[in-house]
């Protein structure tokens, strides 16, 4: 009788992510999650069962060959593992940090039936960091030049993906970015402690190494319009300008001093590095009692940034309950560990100012949850007579973003929805021949990876369009 080898026992729990301690991290802007060590990464990689029909890949918007790269990692073939990742994803160090893996690849992982799913995101991050830290980032081979020229508008997650993919396919790509740094929401929105900016810059320079011509400070719609780009020699255009316009509550007193949109607050702190004021020139004023309105990632990022800027008390006010919060669970846990409090089922109805025009208090009304609305979440309904006043000297309104109208208003014939987002078909094609769009400008406020997924799809369609174009 053949002796059966005893199978090594697979650990049910994921290797935990080493993190800065809450009491230390709440007063610095350094990255909270420290990343796996090599041993930890290989141990976690060994938890992957290498399913013959992997479910995880289907959960990934850019269809990374997950089991393959994990296998290569486990075997210590890091270089090959990185190349495997980059076949599908030009920005692994970013995605490994900010993708909601728990909702995507990891949600489908078979290991979650017996314990915790494989930490795919952490492994992706470890590999990307390994490559960057060793100092030589390898650039994959490019197809020979097709002689076609593409303009990509917006250097955020969608635009960077499209630019990288099309450049690899041999097209000449010019990437226009309105701000003075590339990265879009990755540089202006997501804080340093979640996504260090030097990592974004190094992934951007990888995209440039692929041959992409990056032009900063170019607001398309003003400096050139889309029709002008098409006339001036570009064979196709991709619009990935994001959902840039902040939404306000529309209640009295909202223009008082001390009331920021989450966009303003985060742009000051992240893009302009006002946490280092006056070494950096852009100021930020943070009070003692900071209130954040909203329950998404921008709300959490604002809250945790405010704490790091020295606020004594940071409270998140959300009109629904904990279960409806759109924030990543992990980030809410991080925030609460750091001492941030949440007040659920409350909504501001008025801001009260002092003589100098600075906010000093906020009047709220309590809410209760009614039947579900179109989004499937239970609709919050005000409770009559439940008004109360909270003292505050800094308010950050983080209730979402909408489409910036500059491109739509300067591009004749571009079909838009009533919300101002651009209408596209399943391949990202707009109503204008040769013009494609993807990311938040199509879907409204969504995630980094979904924008990248849209970019992938559009790049494929643009490539086909260009190759068939006479």
């Amino acid at each position, binding site marked *: 009788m053949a002796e059966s080898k005893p199978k090594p026992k697979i650990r049910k729990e994921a290797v935990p992510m080493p993190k800065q301690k809450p009491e230390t991290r709440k007063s610095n802007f350094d990255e909270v999650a420290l990343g796996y060590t090599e041993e930890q990464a290989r141990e976690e990689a060994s938890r992957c069962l290498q399913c013959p029909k992997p479910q995880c890949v289907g959960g990934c918007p850019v269809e990374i060959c997950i089991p393959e790269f994990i296998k290569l990692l486990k075997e210590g073939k890091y270089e090959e593992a990185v190349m495997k990742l980059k076949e599908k994803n030009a920005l692994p160090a970013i995605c490994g940090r900010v993708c909601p893996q728990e909702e995507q690849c990891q949600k489908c992982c078979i290991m979650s039936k017996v314990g915790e799913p494989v930490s795919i995101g952490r492994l992706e991050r470890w590999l990307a960091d390994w490559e960057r830290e060793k100092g030589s980032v390898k650039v994959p081979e490019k197809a020979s030049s097709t002689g076609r020229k593409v303009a990509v508008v917006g250097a955020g997650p969608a635009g960077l993906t499209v630019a990288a993919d099309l450049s690899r396919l041999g097209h000449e790509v010019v990437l226009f970015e309105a701000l003075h740094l590339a990265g879009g929401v990755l540089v202006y929105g997501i804080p340093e402690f979640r996504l260090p900016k030097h990592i974004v810059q190094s992934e951007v320079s990888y995209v440039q190494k692929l041959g992409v011509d990056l032009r900063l400070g170019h607001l398309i719609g003003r400096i050139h319009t889309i029709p002008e780009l098409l006339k001036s020699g570009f064979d196709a255009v991709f619009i990935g300008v994001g959902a840039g316009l902040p939404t306000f509550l529309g209640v009295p007193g909202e*223009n008082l001093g*001390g009331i920021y949109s989450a966009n303003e607050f985060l742009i000051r702190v992240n893009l302009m*590095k006002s946490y280092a004021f*006056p070494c950096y020139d852009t100021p930020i004023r943070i009070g003692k009692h900071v209130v954040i309105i909203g329950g998404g990632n921008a709300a959490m990022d604002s809250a945790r940034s405010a704490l790091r800027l020295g606020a004594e008390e940071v409270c998140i006010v959300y009109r629904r309950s904990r279960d409806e919060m759109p924030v990543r669970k992990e980030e809410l846990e991080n925030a609460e560990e750091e001492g941030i409090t949440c007040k659920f089922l409350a909504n501001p109805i008025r801001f009260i100012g002092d003589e100098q025009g600075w906010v000093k208090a906020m009047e709220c009304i309590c809410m209760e949850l009614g039947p579900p609305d179109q989004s499937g979440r239970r609709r919050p309904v005000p409770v009559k007579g439940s008004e109360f006043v909270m003292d505050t000297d800094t308010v950050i309104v983080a209730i979402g973003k909408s489409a910036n109208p500059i491109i739509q208003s300067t591009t004749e014939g571009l079909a838009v929805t009533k919300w101002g987002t651009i209408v596209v078909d399943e391949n990202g094609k707009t109503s204008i021949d040769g013009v494609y769009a993807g990311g938040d400008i199509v879907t409204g406020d969504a995630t980094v990876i979904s924008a990248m997924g849209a970019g992938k799809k559009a790049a494929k369609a643009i490539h086909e369009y260009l190759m068939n174009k006479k």
Partner: protein
Amino acid sequence: MYEILSKKELAPKIKWFEIYAPAVAEKAQPGQFLIIIIDEKGERIPLTIAGADKAKGTVAFAFNEVGKTTKQLGTLCEGDSVWNVTGPLGVPSEIRNFGKVLCVGGGVMIAPMLYQVEALRKAGNNVTAVVGARIESLLFFEDEMKKLSDKFYVATDDGSKGYKGLGFLKEMLSKEKFDRCVAMGPVVMMKEVSELTKPFGVPTIVTLTPIMVDGMGMCGVCRVTVGGKTKFACVDGPEFDGHLVDFDGLVKRQRMFLPEERLSSLMWELQGGCRCGGK
């Protein structure tokens, strides 16, 4: 990097730059603005475009040395460069033949007003131009403005040159019929002009210069109340109907970061104009 091709001192602490930015120059129109960043640690500051030369590839603007960034900008010379110039931003001015137009430019904003007057004249308007400043020594572009306009007046707050204050406009407005008024200058000045023209029903356009960060609709710090509605000066403006603007609210919002601006400016001066200590 964007090179400074020409630098002039228009008045004490008021400087004029022409910067090489051909793509911006190609598109720039009166009423629009630029965002300038001096260096990697710099803030984004909005500056109203005061001229564009497509042939030379330059855009021009004037600035008042009031804070750290503008003081630092003032130390740069011809041949130096700034890190980033983004523009043209904002909605261009409506330029067509309105008929008779009253143009009032105050302080540093006399410079973009000259650019606007030039365009209005070219469109066939009869232009009455008024330039104003706190005191005589702060006036500039008088000859240029005189040459471009049909009628020309000077006013100072202290009466050191021309009319004392803008009160004389009331008499002018009651005698002459204007089809449009354009005012560019300090908020108090634009508010006064708007109050003066309102009883005469002269449509009045003002250029608002609130605090801005990105300047393209993302942050909302430039929000102003116009006709009871919140507008973003960077994308909805910067020009608005002066009879509908809440100027007092604007002044309060402009002062939001005053303590920080003072600190930054003081540190700049204490360290002899450069606070990095050679780092």
